[in-house]
């Protein structure tokens, strides 16, 4: 509806930000390499070449880790062996797999953003979702119910647990005026420690040997089914549900009465009051929905991808999701696209770490830069424009 130009203009800043962040990340790789630094005094040109080489190796590994080895893919296509082809494509499916939790939590953060709430509690809501799903998978699985019912029940439980964890800060804000920024951060700690406590003490879900805060491994038949025909490819139903959730969120925000109220409250609370909307219920609803989405993300991560629950399953997803929501412009389509990119980066980071000993932390650094550049569009525009200034002047002349 917006036309190609509209889409291009909304993609430009995020794309530029990611690009600039990768460039700056490259500089960091270059200047944090001790060998390169040692070369600089005697042979600066050589150091530069060596540095660029290192960056190239790192980013090449990153890309191969994320999208597969092109040679191997070509060979697989030539051989025509479907199993070999699938294996060559495995990095791509792993990238998609990594994007699932990012999509769910990113969508959740976006719904909250749209209603003017800054939900920093994705981490806690994700963990609570994982807890709910694990508990129900063990209980329902033990009761011998049919698999589809168990799976539906576990995901629903995850959503409800997450929703409850989002409802609390929303309710506190409306009733007591407490800032959701503070309460969601605090609830992250509470969720993390609560989960730790249960995993250490509750024999129902705790692993049998009972020393570490890890849950029982989930039985095969309560696990979210895969959607690709080859077992090595782990991509599961959660991916399709995440895409469906994006469509549902978009429908909710832009097509429903409640979504209209929520967006109005987010853009201008005074006008929402003036228009007679119950702004309080919008805030609570948005936070609960936000939590439910994060909780579903936790459910799919635990019962689909990892198949075992522990306190580390979230791995900072709640914070990365804030970046994803911002980069995606809090639009569901933008969130999906950004989550795919970030999922690919995370997946590729593994191979980069193996091949070049550059820690995956660099990717968090790049993520942080992306947020910075999105938040400071003028800075990004300036960095991008500087090298091309002469060219653009000529174009004008």
């Amino acid at each position, binding site marked *: 509806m917006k036309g190609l130009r509209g889409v291009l203009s909304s993609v430009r800043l995020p794309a530029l930000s990611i690009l600039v962040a990768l460039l700056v990340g490259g500089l960091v790789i270059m200047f944090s390499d001790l060998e390169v630094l040692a070369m600089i005094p005697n042979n600066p040109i050589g150091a530069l070449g060596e540095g660029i080489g290192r960056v190239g190796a790192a980013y090449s590994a990153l890309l191969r880790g994320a999208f597969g080895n092109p040679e191997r893919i070509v060979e697989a296509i030539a051989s025509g062996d479907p199993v070999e082809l699938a294996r060559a494509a495995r990095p791509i499916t792993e990238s998609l797999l990594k994007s699932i939790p990012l999509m769910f939590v990113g969508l959740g953060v976006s719904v909250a953003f749209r209603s003017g709430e800054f939900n920093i509690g994705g981490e806690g809501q994700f963990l609570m979702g994982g807890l709910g799903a694990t508990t129900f998978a063990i209980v329902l699985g033990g009761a011998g119910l049919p698999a589809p019912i168990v799976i539906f029940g576990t995901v629903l439980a995850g959503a409800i647990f997450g929703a409850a964890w989002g409802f609390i800060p929303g309710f506190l804000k409306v009733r007591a005026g407490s800032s959701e920024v503070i309460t969601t951060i605090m609830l992250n700690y509470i969720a993390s420690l609560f989960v730790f406590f249960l995993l250490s003490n509750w024999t129902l879900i705790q692993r049998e040997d009972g020393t570490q805060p890890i849950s029982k491994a989930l039985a095969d038949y309560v696990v979210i089914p895969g959607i690709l025909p080859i077992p090595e490819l782990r991509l599961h139903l959660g991916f399709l549900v995440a895409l469906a959730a994006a469509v549902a969120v978009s429908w909710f925000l832009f*097509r*429903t*009465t*409640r979504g*209209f109220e929520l*967006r*109005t409250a987010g*853009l*201008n609370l*005074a*006008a*929402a*009051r*003036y*228009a*007679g*909307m119950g702004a309080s219920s919008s805030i609570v609803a948005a936070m609960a929905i936000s939590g439910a989405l994060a909780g579903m993300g936790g459910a799919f991560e635990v019962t689909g991808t990892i198949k075992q629950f522990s306190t580390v399953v979230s791995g900072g997803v709640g914070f990365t999701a804030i970046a994803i929501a911002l980069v995606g412009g809090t639009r569901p389509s933008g969130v999906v696209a950004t989550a795919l990119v970030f999922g690919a980066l995370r997946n590729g980071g593994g191979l980069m770490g193996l091949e070049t000993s550059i820690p995956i932390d660099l990717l968090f650094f790049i993520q942080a830069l992306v947020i910075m550049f999105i938040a400071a569009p003028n800075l990004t525009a300036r960095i991008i424009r500087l090298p091309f200034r002469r060219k653009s002047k000529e174009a004008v002349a």
Partner: protein
Amino acid sequence: MSLRLELREITKQFPGVLANDRVSIQVERGKVLGLLGENGAGKSTLMNILSGIYKPDSGTIIVDGEQRVFRDPAEAIEAGIGMVHQHFMLVPVFDVVESVALGAETATGPLGTFDRAAARAKIVELSKRYGLSVDPDAKIESLPVGVRQRVEILKALYRKSDVLVLDEPSAVLTPQETEELFGIIRGLASAGTSVIFITHKLHEVLEVADTITVLRRGKVVGSVKPKEADPEQLAEMMVGREVQLTVDRGQAKVGSVTLSLKGVTVLNQAGEVAVANVDLQIRAGEIVAIAGVQGNGQTELVEAVTGLRPVDSGEMTLNGESLVGASPRKISDAGVAHIPEDRSRDGMVKGMTVAENLMLNSYHRKPFSSGVTLNRSAIEAAAEKIVKDFDVRTPSIHTDIASLSGGNQQKVIVGREFSRTVSLVVAAQPTRGLDVGSIEYIHKRLVEQRDAGAAVLIVSTELDEVLALGDRIAVMFEGQIVGVLDAKDATRERVGLLMGGAAV
């Protein structure tokens, strides 16, 4: 007679707008130049260039016959140009001496401390010389607005300004305070100070200026002497076409009481009494206009009537039904239209489309909502109709309302509120910041509502508007209604005195 200051062929381009197009003005020593123009005519841009905030794309500034380039405001001040902004730049907790000397302090003693005594003596001397009576030791926050303005003028004089630029100085003043200001301006001029007086009010330039220069859409339309000009001619120069200065309206056909307030008391945000024991009745088919200087309880009164602020005590009924404790939605659904005082804050949602803004208080009703989902085609059809009926100039109903002009934004609000049958219209500052064409239009629509049988409550700080529209005029002062006059008895002077708190 010598030229103190001249701007020659000043041009300033902003993205999409030619704010100043070869504008030339001349200011003589000891004379008052009235700079007349609508909002957006380029007055503020020109003054920002003069005071060194903007740099012109082309053109020259000539001070005392010498060409000058101001690289920053300090250089303009050094050349003797002093600005008094519409929104005062004072520190509330400072006293007058501190506020005036701030940034231009003289140091004394070994530690270079602020020489308060010297500053105070200079300020006392200045205020005596120019008749700017101010208590030098009073805290700014304790001073009425009119006196704060004098402090701003003192600030400029303290910096040895002899070209004083006053930007819409009467916006915050009562008519009497405005008269006092004119006295001060005349005094300054006769002592040799040049004054540039920026305004959109015709009678003010006619009264105080020696020369009137009219700006329209970034260009100088012409310069006239007040003696040779009349309001109609100036209005036409300003707007570019013939303008009706009075609102055409017949006799009010008054019906039964629609809104009734008895002993209504309302508290402000800080819990202080903002509206004190107000009695007011508005009948169907009449316009009651509330006059008053900003901040005398009008805002709180309007918020109480529309349900946005609780009534602390008293009775408030609409067609006999109590409104006390009713939610904004209930009041709106009972047939109350509300044009809010702060358009941007309350009346619209920037970032949403014109169509969405038009639905802001009816989106939940059939046919726009099924209860769960929005009916887009019904919303779009209704929006198209309102845009057409109310002559909203917008590229499309899907345009972000933020990109519309103020006049068109207000038309969206008026269209939204008046596109249904209402029994009470509450309009607060309905034409603030709008161009003359939009003002005429909004006034016409308000009178139409009256003639259609609605009770209309207008709150305005523009005395002209109150006098032009009100069938009855109520004046608010310090939270109370200090007088209600019939239109035929309401003169500028009587209303002005009441606005200042004098008993009539």
